[in-house]
């Protein structure tokens, strides 16, 4: 290390990350060997918790079956759909990418809620689907609805990754293929598919991670149909945690961490792989190019898939309350009515305020710490490849893994159910992503700007603040978008660390810290039956990220390579 100040700048982010990720992962392993008694003491049970899951727990087979279904069906369907969509994008131009990406920017709770409202067999489009015989079982209690929501949420990522793989095929190779007699579907099999195979694999693993750790759709679905129907390991471990069975919850999380780590390692391997799948050149396949109309049809179908639940949500939020619960359900509101919004803003105000506070604070903290660390990592090689790999690992590890140990920490610090609990924990989900985005951003950064500033007599700290930061605005904007997105849509941390809404009677104590994602869950229960209010809350919750998205669109398209 040539310079202490290099380390100094990166230190806050690195200390934070190591302290708040390594400790919980280790502590989980320890906790999983204990059982908490009714008196609150921890009793050593050895591998008892694990044996319980695989041998005795009456729900064990259901949980494991659901987990496997979610982690296999989601990537299989997402990738199968993403390939034709990516092909259509390549043919018709990347400007179609932005609308297709919208699901990735909607808070996951909102997405799940929109689908459940739409598929509702009494008050939603589900009524007509069942009547027409298109749907046999009640979608609310079907595990396939969870898969559907996850496909909707993860399809944009799969499309983006595969599209970038197809675009990376050099134009000259495509033309050489033409000269060799490869065109249309035959070229697709012999050239495109093999050359995009690392990206296809990457997309598969990323969407498998989404399916494996899926939580929000089950949270919403369970609010409607009750527990132990849709549960997977992730949701079940949260339930164990909230029932106070910390040891069992930790054991479930250790199992998940092990599997998730396997997937993450596979992801990192696929990510850096330069080896291609080889497919035979099938001479029997036609060489006719698929007509443009077919590509347009694919895009149109995807757009419909993306906007159908959101459109339904919007229509619903604008209906007069009397028209929301009626059989058969109406599609269009008889008149536009803002009652639902009044209700959402009235009851939801403390939740929205808290979401805004924490998202703003956490985005700012993330951008700053991430820039400080990422710059030193990229430009000065701090930490080398190992640190980069650890950041990648954290990115693919969901926050659920940390809840039990962090709950104990937060409780120990006496900040449970306050804004400070969220401020302390939120960077865990956003900092790795922010560092990764900026790490890539700084790869094209000219380090001589910093050297010139040093030559002018500035210290490294000053050079960073006065020269590097102002020049990183576009990269920080994108990192900020993701930080905001994750903070805004977060569900697991607020569920774990808060239990009452923000107390507006004493606003400066910032105690009571539930976020709107929890509010949505509460409104979704059949007891509340406040579907109009929840629809309006959903629309409101989608607005800030979409505004942010449009604001940094140009920078995003640069990163996506769609411009």
């Amino acid at each position, binding site marked *: 290390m040539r310079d202490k100040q290099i380390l100094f700048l990166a230190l806050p982010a690195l200390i934070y990350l190591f302290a708040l990720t390594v400790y919980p992962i280790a502590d989980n392993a320890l906790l999983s060997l204990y059982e908490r008694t009714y008196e609150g003491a921890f009793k050593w049970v050895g591998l008892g918790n694990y044996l319980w899951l695989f041998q005795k727990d009456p729900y064990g087979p259901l949980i494991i079956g659901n987990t496997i279904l979610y982690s296999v069906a989601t990537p299989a369907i997402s990738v199968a759909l993403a390939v034709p969509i990516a092909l259509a994008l390549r043919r018709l131009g990347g400007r179609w990418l932005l609308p297709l990406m919208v699901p990735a920017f909607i808070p996951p709770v909102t997405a799940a809620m929109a689908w459940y409202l739409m598929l509702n067999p009494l008050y939603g489009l589900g009524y007509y689907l069942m009547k027409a015989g298109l749907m046999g079982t009640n979608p609310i209690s079907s595990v396939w609805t969870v898969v559907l929501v996850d496909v909707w949420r993860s399809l944009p990522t799969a499309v983006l990754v595969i599209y970038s793989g197809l675009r990376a095929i050099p134009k000259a190779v495509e*033309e*050489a293929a*033409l000269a*060799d*007699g490869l*065109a249309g579907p035959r070229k697709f099999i012999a050239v495109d598919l093999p050359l995009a195979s690392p990206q296809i694999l990457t997309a598969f693993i990323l969407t498998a991670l989404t399916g494996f750790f899926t939580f929000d759709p089950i949270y919403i679905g369970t609010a409607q149909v009750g527990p132990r129907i849709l549960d997977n390991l992730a949701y079940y471990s949260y339930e164990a945690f909230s029932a106070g069975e910390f040891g069992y919850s930790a054991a479930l999380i250790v199992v998940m961490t092990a599997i998730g780590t396997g997937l993450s390692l596979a992801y990192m391997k696929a990510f850096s792989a*330069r080896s291609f799948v*080889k497919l035979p050149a099938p*001479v029997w396949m036609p*060489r006719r190019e698929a007509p443009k109309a077919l590509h347009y049809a694919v895009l149109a179908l995807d757009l419909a898939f993306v906007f159908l639940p959101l459109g339904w949500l919007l229509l619903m939020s604008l209906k007069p309350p009397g028209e929301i619960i009626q059989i058969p359900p109406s599609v269009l509101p008889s008149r536009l009515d803002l009652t639902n919004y009044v209700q959402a803003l009235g009851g939801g105000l403390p939740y929205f305020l808290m979401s805004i506070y924490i998202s703003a604070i956490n985005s700012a903290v993330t951008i700053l710490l991430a820039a400080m660390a990422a710059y030193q990592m990229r430009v000065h090689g701090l930490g080398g490849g190992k640190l980069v790999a650890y950041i990648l690992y954290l990115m693919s590890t969901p926050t659920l893994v940390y809840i039990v140990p962090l709950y104990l920490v937060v409780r120990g610090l006496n900040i449970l159910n306050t804004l400070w609990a969220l401020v302390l924990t939120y960077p865990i989900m956003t900092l790795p992503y922010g560092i990764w985005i900026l790490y890539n951003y700084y790869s094209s950064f000219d380090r001589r700007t910093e050297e010139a500033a040093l030559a002018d007599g500035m210290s490294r700290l000053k050079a960073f603040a006065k020269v590097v930061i102002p020049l990183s605005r576009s990269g920080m904007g994108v990192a900020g978008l993701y930080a905001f997105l994750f903070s805004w849509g977060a569900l697991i941390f607020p569920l774990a660390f808060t239990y009452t809404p923000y107390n507006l009677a004493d606003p400066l104590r910032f105690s009571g810290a539930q976020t709107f994602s929890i509010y949505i869950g509460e409104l979704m229960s059949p007891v509340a039956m406040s579907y109009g209010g929840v629809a309006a809350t959903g629309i409101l919750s989608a607005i800030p990220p979409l505004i942010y998205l449009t604001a940094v669109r140009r920078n995003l398209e640069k990163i996506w390579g769609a411009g």
Partner: protein
Amino acid sequence: MLILKDVVKTFKGFTLRVDYLEIPDGRYVVVLGPSGSGKTTLLRLIAGLERPDGGSVVLDGRDVTNLPVWERDVGIVFQSYALYPHLTVFDNIAMPLKNKRLPKPEIRRRVEEIAVVLNIADQLHKYPHQLSGGQQQRVAIARALVKEPKVLLLDEPLSNLDARLRLEVRGFLKELQRRLHATVLHVTHDQEEAMALGDLLVVINNGRIEQVGPPDELYARPKSLFVFQFLGLSNLVPAKLVGLGEGLVGFRPEDVALGEGDHRAKVLREEYLGPYKLYELDFNGVRIKARAPPTAAFREGDVVQFSIDVKKALRF
């Protein structure tokens, strides 16, 4: 024989127009022109990677204007080689034959044959990223030649090679063409490369063919000022200065004899180039270049007499 008739291709702000161009069989033809003159476009039109807005491309009496690339009997070598990174050298070379549904033994025989010609027979099991740039290029040439095309198209084949390798590959290409009696169309912006290789040069400028002919003819009897100035070093002076009437007169440095003659000029600069020296002179306010034996000893600032070989001078 390849014939282009009335071919027109327009891009935004650029038009390539070929009224008539004939590429005879078994010759090494070089298309030469400055950057952006339309050389690549011409090649791509012949290959079928670009469709002309009008006109026709006829190969051995067959109108191929609207045929797909792979039915045209042309082989293409891309500047970046464009090998398939996921396939071995063997499979790269075999790809065009596989798509012609040739039987396997025949494919193997022909791939091995062409690999011997290109001196890569021991590389067949490797992947492209395991080869040097020169070897990759040979694989690309083998892939283009293995289908025994009627024309081989090369777009700037030497530009990705370092200076030493460039000379070597240049000789190799010409020998290969001679050995196989192939018809080669080679595109370059380097006039020295063009003159060294071409049996026939096609000089193209701003989307128009300026002149077609053997290099010595183009050098000695350029039909336009552009061709005169693009090929080799040139001098251009007002005709009045040398007593040849009105207009401009062009002549080569080697057609200037320094030491005696009717004209006088001041020596500005001397360049020693090994086999000869090149002088830059101020001739009544016009800069001209003259070639002299390496033993010549004019000094900067001297005023020298010289004569011009009027028989070889060109009027523009």
